[in-house]
């Protein structure tokens, strides 16, 4: 049992598990942080970007100035952005039988794997995962294809040259394997290989292994997987959320109070303000108690809409592979939502615009739901909200049709029938408008100040590039980062110097380390396997020993291109015994509570299912025919005789011999036992504690008689 680790990115995993006779790929994440090394792709000609100076070596050699540009001390590759693929050389990917996808973020490398490695297997994913994954891929392809770039830089990738480059380019890994984005045709072909599955569905792989997706509580249709045979179980946890147990009411309360303070009429004095605040706070606490576990205003993390995580099914695992933990372990997602709203309101009130770089699905549903409840009370009803993405419309529509994958509260809405997400109402009332791109209708409707949700969060391509160029120079505007996948400082680097405000409110609802240790305590796997990043504190907070996985035995860690031997051996298979055979078994009690029965049977194996049937009866002797050929008499050495156990009491044995007509029995003692002599028959029987040896002339009759007498004293196994 082995685990091949093809990706080093802890939240965008790609591992291959060899289990029994199957080869299973777990997720197919695409590391897009590589694009941060590239210049942004502007939608409209940007004089600033095209006039950036070329980069030259310290000695003034400028042979790379066409490929590399410098901006505020950082060097960027001026080329079509490229992605860092999972390792393709570590294992022959054409031997992969199935790919299990846990959520839509973890399938972005799928076309590279299914289209270019000779892969012939099946991909399993839930319907929301596939549909939203398709949207993410479609957006990505669209972003990159609609701004064709003539130049494709490759010189800098040369190993000897890369050494000379400044960091982070110098330290970028495996640049030679970086690839450009796939095409829509490849996406469609890859997605056609997916088979849709439902939570708790038991999927048989060749009858040998059973895989089951479980709700992971992180996103629409997100799943963890169980890979098990009858006696071994591997759990694969990737991107899970437990947020229902999060202490969120208080943070939200404080936040609301804070907001109320801003709203208070300025005529009141300090003390009266304080009284009002205290009153509001108390009121809020009571309110929280009344609504109990239900969510409060301003705190609507993703897990509030997807089905809760299924933890119980992860119990009794031999190995638990743990990936996709929160990337921001120190931030509280609920607090971040509050901060997001207040910063948004503040900017807009001051006449500025707000830019929210985001993916077209996921956290944006939370933010919209949050704003739905917030905008009226915050006096933002007249501010237009724009959602710009080639898949904006599809994303908003799709979110409404996956009722079965939603939490109970949202599910019941559909029974009324009403759309489960309130953004339907935001669209109806024209508060939220969506456009495929900044071109076309949007330019006619565009009003400022406004709030724009658009991609891509890396700020390297997509409509967001345009808004960065447009709004970057004014300090009235704010860009709020909510997606945790990219370092916001690195994302902003090619736009420096920047006057606009930057707020970092990463919302990552995936498990944090406290939740992980709680989870591990509850499901108690025998071994934990995780990316090496989780076995030590984050480099920036090396003193925080609480920001790592703590379990016993210590977690086994992996890094990119490593192969781990998983620490368990397979011992048993399940065999079905046919009732006829079971009937014929004769159990004997060896010890209290333990019985034994010897079984001689025929093993039928079909589709990796084993059935024991009664052995065939010996064929009746064919009478009347001539002598059979000699070779047919040769016994088959595969017919097994049972093992023997016990010991032979000499005195009783001798008595038995005499009873059976052996008159001249003589017994001699030896060091280890006895020798029984039958003089007349020239036969000698050595009897020791654990062995009996009959030495005789070639008299088969005699030998068989003696054999049967000996066997009477022994137990058969």
């Amino acid at each position, binding site marked *: 049992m082995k685990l091949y680790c093809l990706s080093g990115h802890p939240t965008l995993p790609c591992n291959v598990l060899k289990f029994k006779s199957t080869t299973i790929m777990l997720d197919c994440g695409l590391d897009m942080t590589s694009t941060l090394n590239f210049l942004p792709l502007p939608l409209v000609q940007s004089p600033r970007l095209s006039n950036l100076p070329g980069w030259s070596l310290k000695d003034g050699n400028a042979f790379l100035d066409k490929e590399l540009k410098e901006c505020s001390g950082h060097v960027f590759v001026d080329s079509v952005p490229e992605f860092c693929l999972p390792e393709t050389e570590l294992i022959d990917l054409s031997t992969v039988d199935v790919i299990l996808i846990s959520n839509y973020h973890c399938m972005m490398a799928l076309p590279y794997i299914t289209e270019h490695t000779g892969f012939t297997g099946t991909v399993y994913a839930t319907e929301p995962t596939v549909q939203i994954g398709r949207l993410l891929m479609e957006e990505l392809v669209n972003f990159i294809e609609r701004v064709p770039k003539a130049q494709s830089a490759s010189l800098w990738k040369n190993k000897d040259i890369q050494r000379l480059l400044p960091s982070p380019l110098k330290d970028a890994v495996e640049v030679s394997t970086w690839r450009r984005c796939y095409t829509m045709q490849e996406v469609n072909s890859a997605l056609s290989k997916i088979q849709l599955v*439902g939570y708790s569905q038991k999927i048989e792989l060749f009858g040998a292994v059973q895989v089951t997706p479980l709700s992971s509580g992180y996103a629409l249709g997100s799943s963890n997987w169980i890979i098990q045979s009858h006696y071994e179980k591997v759990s694969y946890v990737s991107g899970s959320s437990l947020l229902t147990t999060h202490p969120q009411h208080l943070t939200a309360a404080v936040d609301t109070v804070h907001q109320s303070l801003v709203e208070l009429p300025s005529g009141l004095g300090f003390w009266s303000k304080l009284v009002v605040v205290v009153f509001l706070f108390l009121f809020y606490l009571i309110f929280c108690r009344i609504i109990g576990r239900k969510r409060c205003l301003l705190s609507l993390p993703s897990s509030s809409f997807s089905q809760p995580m299924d933890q119980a099914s992860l119990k009794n695992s031999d190995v638990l592979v743990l990936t996709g933990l929160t990337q921001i372990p120190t931030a509280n997602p609920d607090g971040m939502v509050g901060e997001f709203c207040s910063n948004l309101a503040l900017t807009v009130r001051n006449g500025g615009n707000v830019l929210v770089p985001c993916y077209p699905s996921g956290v944006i549903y939370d933010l919209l739901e949050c704003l739905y409840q917030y905008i009226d009370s915050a006096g933002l009803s007249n501010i237009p909200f724009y959602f710009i993405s080639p898949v904006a419309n599809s994303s908003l*529509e799709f979110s409404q049709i996956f009722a079965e994958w939603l939490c109970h509260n949202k599910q019941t809405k559909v029974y009324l029938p009403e759309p489960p997400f309130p953004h339907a109402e935001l669209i109806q009332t024209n508060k939220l408008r969506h456009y495929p791109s900044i071109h076309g209708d949007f330019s006619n409707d565009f009003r400022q100040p406004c709030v724009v949700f658009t991609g891509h969060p890396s700020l390297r391509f997509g409509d967001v590039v345009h808004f960065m160029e447009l709004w970057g120079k004014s300090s009235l505007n704010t860009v709020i980062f909510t997606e945790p996948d990219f370092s916001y400082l690195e994302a902003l680097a090619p736009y420096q110097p920047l006057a606009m405000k930057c707020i970092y409110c990463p919302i990552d609802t995936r498990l944090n380390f406290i939740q992980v240790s709680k989870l591990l305590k509850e499901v108690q796997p025998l071994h934990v396997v995780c990316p090496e990043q989780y076995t030590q504190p984050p480099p920036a907070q090396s003193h925080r020993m609480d920001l790592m996985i703590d379990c016993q035995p210590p977690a086994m860690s992996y890094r990119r291109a490593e192969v781990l031997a998983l620490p368990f051996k397979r011992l048993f298979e399940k065999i079905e015994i046919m009732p006829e055979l079971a009937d014929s078994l004769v159990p004997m009690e060896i010890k209290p509570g333990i019985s034994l029965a010897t079984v001689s049977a025929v093993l039928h194996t079909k589709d990796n299912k084993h059935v024991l049937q009664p052995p065939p009866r010996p064929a009746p002797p064919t009478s009347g025919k001539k002598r059979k050929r000699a070779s047919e008499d040769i016994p088959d050495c595969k017919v097994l005789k049972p093992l023997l156990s016990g010991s032979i009491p000499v005195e009783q044995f001798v008595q038995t011999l005499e009873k059976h007509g052996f008159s001249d029995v003589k017994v001699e003692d030896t060091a280890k036992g006895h020798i029984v002599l039958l003089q007349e028959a020239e036969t000698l029987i050595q009897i020791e504690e654990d062995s009996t040896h009959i030495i005789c002339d*070639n008299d088969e009759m005699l030998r068989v008689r003696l054999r049967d007498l000996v066997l009477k004293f022994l137990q058969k196994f």
Partner: protein
Amino acid sequence: MPEIRVTPLGAGQDVGRSCILVSIGGKNVMLDCGMHMGFNDDRRFPDFSYITRNGRLTDFLDCVIISHFHLDHCGALPYFSEMVGYDGPIYMTHPTQAICPILLEDYRKIAVDKKGEANFFTSQMIKDCMKKVVAVHLHQTVQVDDELEIKAYYAGHVLGAAMFQIKVGSESVVYTGDYNMTPDRHLGAAWIDKCRPNLLITESTYATTIRDSKRCRERDFLKKVHETVERGGKVLIPVFALGRAQELCILLETFWERVNLKAPIYFSTGLTEKANHYYKLFITWTNQKIRKTFVQRNMFEFKHIKAFDRAFADNPGPMVVFATPGMLHAGQSLQIFRKWAGNEKNMVIMPGYCVQGTVGHKILSGQRKLEMEGRQVLEVKMQVEYMSFSAHADAKGIMQLVGQAEPESVLLVHGEAKKMEFLKQKIEQEFRLLPSAKKPRLLHGTLIMKDSSFQLVSSEQALKELGLAEHQLRFTCRVHLHDSRKEQETAARVYSHLKSVLKDHCVQHLPDGSVTVESILIQAAAHSEDPGTKVLLVSWTYQDEELGSYLTSLLKKGLPQAPS
């Protein structure tokens, strides 16, 4: 052998009142809980007293499964759970759970408010009954208890229709409910994997029909509607609010747009809009094409089809009206039918199966004079057309499903006895038992039984685990051979002889002069008295008993004369 007992409480050789009791591996499951449209007395519900004489249903039944929202499959549910009394789980899919209570309420209203029946289930009972429902996803394996598991497959009959696999240990039953093997305008085709159940219980409504292509039927339908409207007639299409109605609406909507017709199309109940909304929210249950295009254009938003008002029925000029219920047994469709039946210009199109006893069934079987309530006789002059749009599998489809699932045996229900007989023969002809493929192997081992765990291990392992020592039983036989040559040469002759006889065994000549056959050792020694005789010592353990015994008798016969 596994014993599975099936008792149809309804829809055994009949359509309507579907209710089948299955006992499998000690578990009792009730499949569907329908009502019969053709009866207004006790016979309309299944006889639940059969299930258990005395004692509560909840104690006897492990679960109830509802395949889809049609009343002949779920109409008796509130009566069963609230009036007879059942508190266990009821499983159905999400769309069924959403739509089922609405249809039940509709049915209740017709029965109580219009017909004035007493002792019928109430609205509150429908609500209480629905609280016992557990919704299942497609393909989700639901563990009802430790042993019983169920799994839903897409059935394509109506929105949310499902087939169910019921499994206990290694025994399983698949119940199809109603299903459709050809995708239509809004639903996909039923699908099941090769789950090889012990028993497949399949509906057989269209057991003898092989329906012509869908396109032809649609063209036919449109032609008939078009002709009637052209000559100024009115078309009545009795339907159920959900299901066929949506498909025909899509069909007419696109036709009206293409041919640019002006005659109004109405849909009779207030349910429509709500129904269409359900279709929109459960769009993942519709077919590929609708799912793909729903973002651009939602097929369930109709431009040409408007809500019907009772007064419209008397309007002059052509019109098309969809009215509920589908079998003309009550409600608005029957009212409109009465108004329009006298005019030969008009037409009624029955797009689905009609249960015996309903007006729909009567006119379809050619009756033209109907006795209505109050001894009134209604003469039917309007044209009566039957178009099989019911989304049931036809004979070909049923065979297809049997081929997909590969069951050990098939049980036909939900159809007519004669037709079933025909299909039974066809299935028996086409599917024969397949022989198992691989060569079996003989195996010997020891079964250790400890508490409730059973382990089959090798005998050595069993001895080891129990802390017992093996007792070795060995035999050594002396075989005398006449051979005056040296021992080594005798051994060599024995070797070449055995090698030629025992072709399938491993025969070796070891450097020390001895010969082995598998693990049997043969040594040649000089005879102490007779130099012309050699003694062969053949030694084997009890495990090689057969071979050892064979070898001694073989060697006793002597060696073939070697060419010198």
